[in-house]
């Protein structure tokens, strides 16, 4: 959705279509449905079987509310980070569902099995010191990556760029992270104070560089692999595998007890751990997003030049949309010229122009959505307050 990628207008001028999750013409979709329902039942059962949920409903509900708010806030932040397009809400829900049910539940099973294997092959001590981290990083990253691959395999989800992979990867990771944290909370707390403490520690301090970040990195690699057909296959494979390896390493390091021992158990140690383990993962993700945006910006510009009516989006207006900084500068200029209402109209115009380009790209210039957005652009421009 974010760029035309391999489907360049010069090669195929047909609109790419709006993204949808439901696609009965794909067995992958039916596997997705069965896997989500099966895993969802098990996750629900695990939660309702929790002693805390059964005996201390207030604790269980407060944990649910807190983690739901956390998920919504995290989702809103990532959603706002989409520069040129808005990705499908339903595909987003699908990604969250995969992460929170399938990836989580199968990882629980796989981690237990691999733990048994490490104990059988090596020792309990080995499993505790190394095995748990090895199993978690390998099983969880693979199962979350599988969620992105499932989305890619569904033709109607319209995955067409590196950043599509990044976005849906983050959503899969976020679903996993929130469900894991919620289950962990109800299994390890018995009071509202403990719930708050867990939320602070796992959500706010440790959660900003956890599953969502890892899978965002992995998803970008998958997106790059399957959409950048203009690049050699070998290069795409190397980058996808490399990003997976990086995410795996961050995850492994985060779970590794031996690194925690280096810093001690106090608050200072916790900050040290975050700086050593968490910040590199977040920085890597931001670099990956920046790298993906460079290409997204080029493709968006090329599409606008080739396919967009310049009376609806002038060259200067298009240039003003290329970055958040440029957008803010344009709004500021409108504010200086016409006051607060002009600034608001400019913001609305920018948003409408972005949606117009997306509508042309997905549905064609003659589509109802494109026509409605074009009409809206004209009306905003005719507003006396808009200068």
């Amino acid at each position: 959705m974010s760029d035309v990628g391999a489907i360049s207008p010069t090669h195929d001028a047909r609109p790419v279509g709006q993204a949808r999750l439901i696609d009965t013409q794909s067995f992958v979709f039916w596997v997705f449905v069965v896997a989500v329902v099966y895993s969802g039942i098990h996750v629900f059962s695990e939660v309702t079987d929790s002693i805390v949920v059964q005996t201390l409903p207030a604790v269980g509900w407060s944990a649910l509310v807190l983690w739901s708010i956390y998920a919504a806030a995290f989702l809103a932040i990532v959603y706002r980070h989409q520069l040129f397009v808005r990705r499908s809400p339903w595909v987003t829900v699908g990604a969250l569902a995969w992460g929170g049910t399938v990836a989580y539940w199968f990882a629980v099973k796989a981690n237990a099995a691999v733990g048994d294997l490490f104990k059988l092959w090596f020792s309990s001590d080995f499993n505790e010191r190394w095995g748990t981290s090895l199993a978690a990083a390998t099983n969880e990253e693979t199962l979350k990556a599988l969620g992105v691959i499932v989305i890619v395999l569904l033709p109607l989800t319209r995955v067409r760029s590196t950043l599509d992979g990044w976005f849906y990867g983050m959503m899969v990771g976020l679903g996993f992270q929130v469900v894991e944290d919620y289950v962990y909370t109800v299994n390890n707390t018995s009071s509202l104070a403990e719930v708050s403490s867990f939320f602070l520690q796992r959500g706010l301090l440790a959660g900003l560089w956890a599953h969502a970040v890892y899978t965002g990195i992995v998803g970008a690699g998958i997106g790059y692999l399957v959409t950048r057909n203009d690049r050699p296959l070998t290069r795409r494979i190397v980058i996808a595998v490399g990003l997976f390896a990086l995410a795996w390493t961050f995850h492994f390091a985060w779970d590794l007890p031996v690194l925690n021992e280096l810093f001690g158990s106090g608050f200072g140690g916790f900050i040290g751990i975050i700086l050593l383990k968490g910040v590199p993962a977040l920085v890597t993700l931001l670099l990956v997003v920046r790298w993906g945006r460079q290409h997204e910006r080029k493709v968006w510009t090329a599409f606008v030049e080739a396919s967009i009516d310049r009376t609806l989006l002038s060259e200067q207006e298009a240039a003003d949309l290329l970055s958040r900084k440029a957008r803010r500068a344009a709004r500021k200029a409108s504010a200086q010229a016409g006051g607060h209402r002009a600034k608001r109209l400019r913001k609305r115009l920018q948003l409408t122009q972005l949606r117009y380009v997306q509508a042309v790209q997905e549905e064609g210039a003659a589509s109802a959505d494109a026509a409605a957005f074009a009409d809206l652009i004209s009306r905003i421009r005719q507003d006396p307050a808009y200068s």
Partner: protein
Amino acid sequence: MRVQQPKGVPEVSSSTAAATPPATASPLDDERDLFGVRSVVGAIGVLLVLTLFGVGLQALADSVRGSSGFTVGEPTAVSDTVAFVPAPGWINDPDQSVPGAAVVAQKNGWEIKIAAGLTLQPGQSLEDFARIFYDIPPDEPGSQVSDLETFTTTSGLTGVTWTVHGSTTTTTTWQIANGDQVTQVLAIGPSATLDSVQADLDAMAGSVTMENAAEEGQ
């Protein structure tokens, strides 16, 4: 697709687009085919991965556990009062084991037997007891017999050990006492592969625990 609009402007949504389908289908729609490669191979691939993680790994663990007969890292009972911790890769040999009295395990051609139920005579020290076995001439001519050395298990019990190095076979014996009760650990195998199991043998002998039978009976 939704966008906030000024008052009086009709809402623009994907539903209005659905009422007016695009003139040409998306090129991505060309890839939609229930029985196409992407659909069938993709679904099979996803199912295989889920089967591996959901069932396969646990089946492998169960298989390894079944073939080993031990839970590595967890104490295995030899008798009511004696237990030891098997090392990784050692396989229980139930044919040679004696329930309640001895456990035999094997790895790399090596065999270790942990036997409980030996007792010291009144006034007999463990060293005196061990020397009876120590003084038995080796089966293999030219074997070198180490000194009789004392050692302590991880649970604090005292024991003695010695090794008979032959050109083809090596035998190491540990005898551990708790009161008048003695547990004997006997390891025998090819001298050539001793290095590969030495740490395991030491760990298993050192892991032996013996509860006091008199206290147990109270």
